[in-house]
């Protein structure tokens, strides 16, 4: 029993769940227990979007130091516009719209890697330059876009079963799948190996280029999917719809216990960290603080959590 508990506490992801629980507790203590369940429902539906991009970002970050996808916000913005334009408010076009959004994200991911490969530049700069261009395409393509999502699609994005959003259930299944891919497939093991030592991985015969291409494409596709989901949930596309997901996607990866040095990933931690961030905002909102204080506290708490979670090599255990 105690042994089991010890094992549980040794898991790096457990802390993000404990953190979320404490934040939730603080919020319902403040409201006197009012809205405790609703808070979890809301947190689950919002956390989904962070988890989807967080998983993509985690695969990219696991590739090793310097690997990060900064084009996600622009990617999400463009994909949300593409999804809404293709669906054009018509329920029968939902699947086509989703495919279009994912394809758009996939293309962005592939372009990202081509830039990294062809120009031999660090991924940060490659994804950054790509995001400049995507952002402009989005501004020009999505200007004055006022298309509402198809009613059936918007309802699906907001649907719940016994207070649990459908999207959250699907996303949990998806993260389990991602976990299996990461730990049990050749591709997933290759990602981890490249992150641990890219030269050793190459000498061991791993197809480094292909694996990296697949990873950036995967992250891009998830960004596209997220754009479509966000547009459904918030009932409309928007150039700025993805802005908060730059910080959020990187933060959930790091808070969730994935090593920024690469080679060590953690899928459950992404859920814990995403719930933590969303519940943190919910708590600050229930306390009724102003926008300035909310930003200030969010930033401070992220810095404190990162500091507490500690350095990469000097991990506590």
């Amino acid at each position, binding site marked *: 029993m105690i042994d089991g508990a010890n094992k549980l506490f040794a898991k790096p992801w457990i802390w993000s769940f404990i953190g979320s629980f404490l934040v939730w507790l603080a919020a319902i203590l403040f409201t006197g227990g009012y809205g405790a369940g609703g808070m979890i429902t809301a947190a689950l539906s919002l956390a989904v979007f962070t988890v989807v991009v967080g998983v993509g970002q985690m695969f990219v970050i696991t590739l090793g130091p*310097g690997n*990060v996808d900064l084009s996600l916000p622009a990617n999400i913005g463009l994909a949300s516009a593409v999804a809404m334009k293709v669906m054009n408010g018509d329920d029968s076009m939902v699947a086509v719209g989703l495919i279009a959004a994912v394809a758009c994200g996939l293309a962005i991911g592939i372009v990202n890697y081509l*830039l990294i490969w*062809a*120009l*031999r*530049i*660090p991924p*940060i*700069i490659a994804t*950054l*330059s*790509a*995001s*400049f*261009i995507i*952002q*402009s*395409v989005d*501004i*020009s393509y999505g*200007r004055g876009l006022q298309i509402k999502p198809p009613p059936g699609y918007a309802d699906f994005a907001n649907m719940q079963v016994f207070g649990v959003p459908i999207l959250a259930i699907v996303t949990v299944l998806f993260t389990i799948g991602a976990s299996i891919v990461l730990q049990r497939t050749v591709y997933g093991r290759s990602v981890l190996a490249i992150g641990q030592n890219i030269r050793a991985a190459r000498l061991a015969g791993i197809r480094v280029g292909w694996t990296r291409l697949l990873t950036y494409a995967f992250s891009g596709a998830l960004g596209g999917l997220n754009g479509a989901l966000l547009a459904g949930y918030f009932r409309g596309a928007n150039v700025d719809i993805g802005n908060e997901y*730059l*910080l959020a996607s*990187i*933060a959930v990866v*790091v808070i969730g216990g994935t090593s*920024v040095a690469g080679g060590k990933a953690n899928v459950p931690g992404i859920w814990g960290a995403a719930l933590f961030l969303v519940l943190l905002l919910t708590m600050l909102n229930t306390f009724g603080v*102003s*926008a*300035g*204080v*909310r*930003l*200030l*506290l*969010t*930033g*401070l708490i*992220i*810095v404190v959590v*990162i*500091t507490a979670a*500690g*350095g*990469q*090599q*000097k991990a506590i255990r």
Partner: protein
Amino acid sequence: MTAASTTSAQSAAPAMGRLNLPRMLRALLPALSLALVLLAIAYLNPRAISYFGFTLMLNLAIPIALATIAQMFVIAGNDLDLSIGAFVGFVSCVTATWLRDTPLIGILALLGCIGVYAALGALIYLRNLPSIVVTLGMSFVWQGLAILLLPKPGGKAPDWLLAIMSVKPPFVPFPILAALILAAVAYFGLMRTSYGAILRGSGGNAVAIGRAGWSLLRAKAALFALTGLFGVLSGLALIGITTSADANIGNGYTLLSIAGVILGGGEFVGGRVSPVGAVIGALTLALAASPLLTFMHIPPDWQVAANGAILIIVLAARVLISQKGAER
């Protein structure tokens, strides 16, 4: 990494003449891209190439160049500051309120900001933290503080600041003079002083610098403090031009400053940065983003894309040059 070390090894070889050409081309690339943008502007609108034309076109380039130099210091230490835009915004809010109404508090607050930056550098070194995440978190902190200080756009720049930023020196337009001074100061500070070499070394080979007896903690804190200092100067310059502040005024600066450093020949790893190149890179981005597009009748929607395209073109040119160098 390997490419970088081979080029430097080549330059160290005595038979320099031939081998040095790619390296020289590479060093001249930022200046060439700026010249190209200027030529395009001159072709499209000859009247812009004048004292007043440059003053107008390059005015906003001063704060961008200062923010780029700020970013350059953290990049020299293998870190990245994703909060510089929000920080410039916060500084501009302090400048337009406290620094004007109660100068003493304003000065203390700005000095405190530099102290916070130094502390961040120390924290990142001591706990071995990823600077991207810490500075992303800090960007929320600065923005929150800016909104608390100035919930609505407003405030007013101190008169002395307005006077400085509207100086009209003879013959040379003020922005160009300011850029020259900035490039010279940053160049001599980082490239020509012995402690500057230590600072760059802490990014190039931290273990070697540590074994040589220098404090890496102090180097990291110094690099971050310098970023804070130039971030403050950037905010001051920005408010001297725009005359009033807004919490979101600096948001675009984070990406512009990183792009400027890379455009100017900097690298993310190994302490390889170029102060003169960074200033030129910032000027190129500032010119290409709006005046050039305006003269080409391209809608402002594509301003950001122009920055991305320039970045990609210059980096592609750099690859071509290095490849030629490797083939010989």
